[in-house]
């Protein structure tokens, strides 16, 4: 029943309240003596040279995309892990085929050097 989700609602509420209160409290309690250097972007003590908006390399995107693919793979493992004993060997074989097919993709990714940084 929907009432059994009240603890989750409570956690969400506490998380939101904690975020809002802690950010505003530190702004309220902390001393504020702003000057030019303090407001400039910190770049290892060097004056900022350009804006933070610039095109990122596609390498980051490759990492993010492989993360998603293998994240979805893990998602399918949750129900398998929960029902592991009931499914027995058939479940094991079914899951092995699934993992082997994705391992082919992983090996392809490694061999093509998609995860190499340079």
């Amino acid at each position, binding site marked *: 029943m929907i009432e059994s989700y009240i603890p989750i609602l409570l956690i969400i509420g506490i998380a939101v309240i904690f975020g809002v209160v802690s950010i505003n409290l530190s702004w309220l309690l902390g001393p504020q003596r702003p000057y030019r250097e303090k407001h400039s972007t910190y770049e290892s003590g060097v004056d900022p040279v350009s804006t933070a908006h610039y*095109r990122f390399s596609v390498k980051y995107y490759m990492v993010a*995309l492989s993360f998603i693919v293998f*994240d979805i793979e893990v998602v399918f493992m949750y129900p398998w892990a929960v*029902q592991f004993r*009931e499914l027995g060997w058939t479940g094991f074989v079914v899951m092995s085929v699934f993992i082997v097919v994705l391992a082919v993709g992983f090996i392809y990714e490694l061999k093509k050097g998609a995860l190499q940084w340079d």
Partner: protein
Amino acid sequence: MSSELIVFLILAAVGVLSGILMITRPNPVNSALFLILNFMALAGLYITLHAQFVAIIQILVYAGAIMVLVLFVIMLLNLEDEEPLREQMSKRHYGSLLVALLALVLIVQVIGWNSGGTLETMREQSPHALRIGTVEHIGSVLFTEHVYPFELTSILLLAAIVGAIVMAKKRFP
């Protein structure tokens, strides 16, 4: 009003509002944040429909992983604030109008469609229906009755990996 109806109305309002805010924000990062809120509201709606596993996956995969990808695309394309569109009506716009109209017809059709039972009647008919969306039930069905589509999913994911590498990498070392 039942408590479930109240929860549904709140979640639906949050979902629609965040959706509208998402498409109207000029800053793409703000749009992405409202999309997360929209995903959260959808996850709540899945719970009211007794699809617990789908709800948690909605948060884990969509609000977590897919949003990382969306933000990377925003960074990759180096999107600045959206410039106000000052275009005249072109052929492309008539096409969008047609698609929007078709979508409206579809929505009206689905709302009018009677599925032959509400959640209440489903619950009365079989108490088992309540547990249909749990991880246990999905696990016991997915790996026995629906093995073929499940294995096809791995092919789909493989195609995603290969496609991304082929498109992103111009030359290989």
